């Protein structure tokens, strides 16, 4: 197991290098020159040259890439090009609110989608299954923006059950109890339907396995069969889905954060792309790339724990 983990960690190095190269090429190709954003209304060659020197854009491409590698090694991406604040500090302040929203959403979504999926899978082909399937299809065909706009208007403005937007900087609990519920609810409305459909398919697949028929023939109770055997086997794809979504929790939810004034990472990324703020883009992309690799490794280790038949090579 340890040898496997070490090997996987070693393999991350070339992958990360590939990601860095890709990010660097894409930014320089389509990202646009930020000097022109920073130069203000009146552009002079001197101003432009000063800005380019200041940002290090006057260096050759290999030199700029080398600097990027050094930044990743030290995990210090320097100051933001637009606000000149240290990128590390910006991201550290943003990650908490994002995790509060997306972490809560993941837990609530699992706790609701999984039981519904098991229920409808158990009654597959019956009225309840068909009704849920139709409801999910309808729900999935509506844009997430519609949920957010209508939800904010009806539940916050018209009904007054939630604040329209905002955040409590002084109290995590206050923010979580007061400002998270509505975006959480709307996030759940967006993600519940596809998750139910997704998880249902795994449970249905397991219910069609021979061992289920054998278990029933042996007289095993439906509850034991469902929760001890079927659910455990169905959990492997669920774990894959959940662990692969974990790195993106850090990224937050761009739309929800933007509409509800949550000072999270998603909104920060949007701002950075808008302003061609490469240090922030680099930091977020590399963080996501590293966490994706780490969580993929974690998923593989979890498979082994859930199903001892799985062999890690």
């Amino acid at each position, binding site marked *: 197991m340890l040898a496997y983990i070490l090997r996987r960690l070693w393999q991350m190095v070339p992958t990360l290098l590939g990601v860095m190269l890709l990010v660097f090429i894409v930014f320089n190709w389509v990202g*646009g020159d930020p000097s022109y*954003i920073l130069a*203000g*209304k009146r552009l002079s060659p*001197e101003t432009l040259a000063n*800005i380019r020197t200041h940002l290090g854009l006057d260096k050759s491409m290999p030199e700029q890439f080398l600097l990027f590698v050094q930044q990743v090694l030290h995990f210090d991406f320097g100051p933001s090009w637009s606000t*000149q604040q240290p990128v590390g500090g910006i991201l550290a302040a943003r990650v908490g609110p994002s995790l509060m929203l997306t972490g809560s959403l993941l837990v609530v979504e699992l706790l609701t989608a999984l039981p519904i999926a098991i229920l409808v899978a158990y009654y597959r082909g019956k009225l309840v299954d068909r009704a849920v399937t139709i409801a999910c299809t309808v729900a999935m065909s509506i844009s997430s923006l519609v949920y957010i706009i209508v939800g904010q208007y009806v539940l916050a403005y018209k009904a007054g059950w939630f604040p329209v*937007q905002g955040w409590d900087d002084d109290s995590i609990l206050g923010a979580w109890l007061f400002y998270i519920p509505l975006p959480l609810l709307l996030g759940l409305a967006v993600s519940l339907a596809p998750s139910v459909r997704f998880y249902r398919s795994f449970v249905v697949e397991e219910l069609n396995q021979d061992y289920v028929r054998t278990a029933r023939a042996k007289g095993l109770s439906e509850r034991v069969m469902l929760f001890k055997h079927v659910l455990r086997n169905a959990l492997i794809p669920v774990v894959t889905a959940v662990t692969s979504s974990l790195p993106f929790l850090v990224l937050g939810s761009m739309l929800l954060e933007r509409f509800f*004034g949550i000072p999270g990472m998603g909104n920060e990324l949007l701002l950075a792309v808008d302003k061609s703020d490469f240090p922030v883009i680099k930091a977020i992309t590399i963080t996501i790339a590293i966490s994706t690799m780490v969580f993929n490794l974690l998923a593989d280790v979890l498979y082994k724990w859930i199903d001892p038949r799985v062999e890690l090579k």
Partner: protein
Amino acid sequence: MIKKSLLLVALLVSAAGSLQAADMNKVLHVAYVAPENGFDPAKTTDLYSSGISENIFDTLVTYDYLARPLKLVPNVIEAMPEISADGKVYTFHLRKGIYFSDDPVFKGKKRELTADDVVYSMKRLADPKVNSPSAYLVTDNIEGLHDYAKSLGGKPFDYDKVLPGVRALDRYTAQVRITAPNSSFIYILGQIHIAMVAREVMEAYAENTMAHPVGTGPYMLKEWKPGNKIVLEANPNFRHFELTSDGSGQGVDAEIASYLKGKALPLVGRIEVSIMEEEQPRWLSFVNQQLDLTSVPFSAVSRVLRPDPAHPGRSKLMAEWEKKGIRLQQELMPEITYYYFGMTDPVVGGYTKDRIALRRAIGMSLDRMRAIRDLRKGQAVPMQNVIPRNFPGNDPNFHGAWEYDPAMANALLDEAGYRIGADGFRTQPDGSPLEIEMATSPTAVDRQWNEAWQEAFDKIRIRLRFKVAKWNELYKASTEGKLQLWGSAWTADYPGADNFLQLLYGPNSGQTNHTFFKNDEYDELFRKSLLLPDGPERNAIYDRMNRIVVGLSPWIFGDVRVGNYLSNPYVRGYKQHPILITTWRYLDLQK
């Protein structure tokens, strides 16, 4: 008894020591529609950062809050500067007893604003290490600053070196010598980028001046979450300041003047600025009174405003909002929007009759009134003059725009030799294919304008191609003279006509003159206009310059948008200012 007396004396002393009148329990909530960059006035040029800096820092002169036409008044100086007979030397006498807000750098001592701060702040703008995008404000105007900054060649700027262009005569007197008389230089002194900063603060926080603004203004920065939230608190060291102007003495002006009379400003102790880029949360927060001020979101115009058919661009609030006591102020924005042709381009540029005809025909093909009705939702008026309405030098009777007339446009093109080929589209006079490329950004609004332009080009049988790219990429191409046709806008830095006319001044090509327009007579008139004060002689020059522009048609005149500013019923003292970005120091909340 003695104890009580001592207590009373102590209370009186402490009350006298604190000049602040602001009620710290009053919190003004406002929203920005786009994020700020930071609060070093020399380093930022965006509207949102400058709006905050306006409240933290002071400029030598500022605008009378209520007066229209706009009027400059002394801010931290005793009177307007003394200007020498040759118009080149400006002398400022600072008011005594103006203090910076407290900061650890001052080591617990009160730090007074002096003439050295004025000199330092102007020199700092020219320091290549500061890398100020507003450096031109001083290097283009103040004697010796450009040459000294250029001579440094990477060496540090010596702030102690006495430069003849800007110097302190004594503790409270500063003098500036400009390279040539310029009637608009006084406006430059009112720009926030040239605001007074303290040298020791800038040096102590040299690595992060954006997050450490320390000024003499009415507020100070309490909290900053970049791109999300900014909190200001009243500066306890702020000088005694009252509104002395009556404006027009009528309507809103009279109401504000009467309400604020004798009150020390600011009245609101805390300002919370949230960044809300989406229109819906901004609007709902305003009607829920979570925001005190806002502007009418574009998507809500038809639900909030009733257009006045008799007065284009004027509207009233719908009854639903009027009943809530919400107040509307409409103000023409201090801007122009236009489409420009690249004058060095081989297809659309140049000064020959056929090219002028082509540009005019394209201008005549767009139905501007329809665009204003449909795309601006009626919230704009046509631009008729390079100088926007309400600005000194604008002749309201001058109609410089080519009005919508596709038949005339086609006739012009026929006459100029742009014949319609077998494929139904026009060719160039020499028979080569004619296709015009219009630059545009990938936004929903731009796509709507593109449709209007496609329709316009179809009417005059000219092929149109769109070059879609991010704004900064187009801007780069624009400064290099590589675009054929692009929509642009200019917002006033100050209420001077030259601020707009310089957009077509030849020597500014590639800087602000992206059309690369060059006309010797225009350039000469521009230089001449700078020497003249406001008056008929200068207006005659402006008129001639406008006629040159209309005659050679490097631009298609667009429109001037109307700003619809709303305040909740409990907000007092509010009047939108065309140049000042914020008016928070004059506001009160009576909830």
